[in-house]
């Protein structure tokens, strides 16, 4: 086994050309107790600050929102899904239109996944071979194939600022160690194929490669086996991608195992690169993962749950469809200053942080002034009028971005442990008994005792 790894690492050093980076990552502060970091990540479409949460605009729009509503929430980096954009509008259209930024009039950053995850999860007949992900066309059963090269090619057409390698994803809870190992090793081999594809001359600028305008991130696999994760991390770090993702999580594994994997990975990762934990998550996951040294997150939960009438607030998640909110005329979250929670026509709030580029609506009628929406009114609209979902989606996105910004501020002021205690305290109304054990344990591992005053 070790021999295989050594070969993989050596291969990287010798055969794979050095890949340029289209980002800079500047760490501004580190927590003196936990592994949390605060940084400025400069991407082709402008800077962002980490820790960051990236909302998921699956098919080039965030569920009923206009790009400017997303900007007003403080977002400058969102996700699109390669699987979905590959189907609709399709690569040919993306090429003609000039990529996803033009398609959705979003002049900020986009990150795309590889499409492999959706393919394996959604297409029941998908199988993974060395060539790529094979699946049967659901219409006529024709065997089809998504290769690492094709995934990268699709992401070139999309033009996203951060692109992800195609990896061999299997659920972390899979009991089959041999299959897990195969997937990990294959993911490393596929990374090499992705890099080779990414180093091809840019169709729009043949004197340069795609790597000069898009950042390819590797994805560490290895299930819940920490040694396998470390091994994979070592091989991938040797490939020197501009950023590093930890994949295969958020698939229903136990939370303490999740935390162990994140920590094991960040322990061996270089300091100077952004670390992205894919598919996470809930507000608690986010602030614990930051303490474990992660920088970037994405998850559909916050926006999906909004459509079911759930508001993420500083006092926890509230199901506003519950009858008890029918007569609650206060704001969705009294501690929130988003457009939904601010009083009607109150001035637009200042930008989330100083790095944010000017929003596109600066020269339009869009005022981003407060709307003064009450819990009772969301209750009245929930699941009956889509505008209710739009409003709550805007709030939930703003809440998560705000939370990340507060976390960043706490790191800069070196009071992250206190921030953790305060935030958990509010979510659970001061009842420490209710704090999830996994979070308490994980944070103990990085020097914070949530239960102490």
């Amino acid at each position, binding site marked *: 086994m070790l021999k295989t790894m050594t070969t993989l690492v050596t291969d990287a050093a010798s055969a794979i050309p050095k890949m340029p980076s289209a980002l800079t990552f500047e760490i501004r502060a580190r927590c003196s107790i936990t592994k949390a970091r605060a940084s400025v990540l400069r991407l082709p479409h402008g800077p962002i600050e980490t820790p960051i949460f990236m909302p998921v605009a699956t098919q080039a729009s965030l569920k*009923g929102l206009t790009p*400017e*509503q997303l900007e007003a929430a403080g977002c400058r980096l969102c996700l699109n899904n390669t699987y979905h954009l590959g189907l609709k509008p399709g690569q040919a*259209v993306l090429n003609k239109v000039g990529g996803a930024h033009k398609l959705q009039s979003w002049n900020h950053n986009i990150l795309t996944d590889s499409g492999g995850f959706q393919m394996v999860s959604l297409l029941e007949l998908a199988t993974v071979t060395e060539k790529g992900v094979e699946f049967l066309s659901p219409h006529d059963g024709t*065997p089809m194939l998504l290769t690492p090269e094709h995934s990268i090619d699709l992401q070139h057409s999309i033009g996203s600022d951060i692109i992800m390698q195609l990896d061999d994803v299997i659920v972390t809870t899979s009991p089959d160690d041999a299959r897990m190992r195969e997937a990990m090793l294959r993911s490393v081999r596929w990374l090499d194929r992705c890099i080779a594809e990414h180093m091809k001359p840019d169709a729009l600028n043949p004197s340069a490669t795609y790597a000069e305008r898009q950042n390819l991130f590797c994805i560490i696999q290895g299930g819940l086996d920490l040694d396998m994760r470390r091994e994979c991390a070592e091989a991938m770090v040797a490939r020197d991608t501009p950023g590093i993702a930890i994949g295969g999580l958020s698939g229903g594994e136990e939370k303490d195992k999740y935390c162990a994997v994140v920590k094991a990975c960040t322990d061996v990762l270089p300091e100077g690169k952004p670390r992205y934990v894919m598919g996470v998550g809930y507000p608690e996951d986010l602030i614990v993962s930051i303490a474990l040294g992660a920088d970037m997150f994405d998850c559909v939960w916050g926006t999906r749950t909004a459509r079911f009438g759930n508001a993420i607030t500083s006092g926890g998640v509230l199901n506003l469809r519950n009858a008890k909110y029918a007569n609650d005329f206060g704001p969705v979250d009294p501690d929130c200053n988003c457009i939904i929670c601010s009083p009607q026509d109150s001035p637009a709030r200042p930008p989330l942080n100083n790095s944010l580029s000017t929003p596109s609506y600066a020269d*339009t009628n869009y005022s981003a002034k407060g709307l*003064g929406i009450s819990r009772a*009114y969301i209750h*009245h609209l929930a699941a009956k009028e*889509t505008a209710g979902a739009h409003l709550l989606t805007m709030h939930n996105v703003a809440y998560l971005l705000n939370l990340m910004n507060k976390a960043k501020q706490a790191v800069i002021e070196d009071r992250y442990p206190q921030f953790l205690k305060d935030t958990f305290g509010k979510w659970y109304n001061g009842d420490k008994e209710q704090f999830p054990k996994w979070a308490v344990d994980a944070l103990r591992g990085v020097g914070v005792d949530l239960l102490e005053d």
Partner: protein
Amino acid sequence: MTVSEDIEASVHPDNSDISATHHSAMFSFKLLTTSPQAVTTGARLGQLITRAGKIQTPNFIAPSSRGVVPHLSQDNLRDHTKIPGVYVATEDFIEKPLPSIFDQPELSQHNNNTSDPATVPAGRLRAFTSHPTTSFQLLAPRRCPPVPAPATNTDHSIGILTSVGFRTLEVNDYHKMISHLAPDAAVGIVDIPAHAPGKARREKMVERVESWFGALLRVRNGSGEAGGAGRAPVPILAPVLPVDAEIQRLYFDFLEENEEKIAGLAVYDDQVAMDLPEGLQSMVRVLMRDCGTPQKVLEAVERGTDLFTAVFPNEATDAGIALDFCFPVENSKTGQDEPVYTKDTQQVIVGAVRKQLGWNFWDNERYQTDLKPLAEGCECYACKKHHRAFVAHLLNAKEMTAWVLLQIHNMHVVERFFEGVRGSIEKGTFEQDCEVFKRVYEDEMPNKTGEGPRLRGYQFKTTAGPRKNAKVFGKFTRPGGDRTEKLGEADLPPDMGTVKMEDIGFAEKKV
């Protein structure tokens, strides 16, 4: 507990001293001029002053659903449209035994933080719905258009539909709601049966409406019950029924006698309004039925309609149609789709195809790489910031943002249309402009081929008829579990054939 008892119980005595501006300042209508062509056309210009601002007429208000204009969150409504007002249905708010809107503080700190109660419109309806302060709200008993209710109307109640089902609304309860919710104006309750009424039934309709409206006026001006102590009463529009004016003659006499108590007329058939007695002629006429097409709107303007409740723009939006017409017809911007017209707009080139009133964006193939605005030259947010390819993609992907952008655009087109109508009346060219419009444009909206957004909720309930939502493509699942829930946003498997999949570059055929 009956609804009326609920209302009594929920009135907050401590709020009853809130004063409002004088009635006349709160709602008044002034006919600016009738058309210079008044001999042949009844088109007229006016100005309606409401608590929420001035509305130049002819103009339109948009029907709302549960207090929102469909697809438009309040920021988009406020910042990206100039819709002067909305139509609000009482039946959207009273599904619970104790409707929460009744408990809404009239001036909530949260909703009206910065406002001065003397200048900003207040009232529970506005506070509850966080409706933009510069947009007018007209309260009526039922949605526009209403879903036929199976319950027959009685001498003291009408059948309505709430989100939890059909029920009846007591006329007296509606009258109490008017004063309790304090909208900017309200429409008197009408008795309109679901099916075409016979002669006896028509007479019954008039009899009831006169009696109900009389009761409303008494409540309003009597003991102060409806207005509340010290509060100016809510401006009331008197219904004009969709039956021959002759049958309504006595009722019209009654309205004339009470002319100073009536803020305007809610007209259910604008043909009837042409036969209004002299004393009611100068009142604002709000048309309570949809016209369906701009041509029909123009005809109603010619018959003296001042304010329209326009349903057709929203219907176009739901159908994925971007409206594209202007009034008066401009010398055409040439485009591939559009025939050319001569400088003299009276002379449409013989044989030229008539212009479509809008474009069906479900026709995805046609627009998928088209980076032009939805309608060329349009200044709305959707057209200035986005393009056809995006809207076509969003519709194809059934993303909600498609309908948001189309709604912003369609409202803008209709706003501009009414601006054009007013300008044309002012110039005295309205009649000719109408003629040209009718010659240049198709008579009907483009065919609605798309499925539209998934229609949810009670407002789409019908007593019979085809299912509203087509069956979605069956998911490809293994027995024992549908994993899509876990994936959340993730969509169905590729809904297309293999050749197509290769064609668009999604994946390649395995060799």
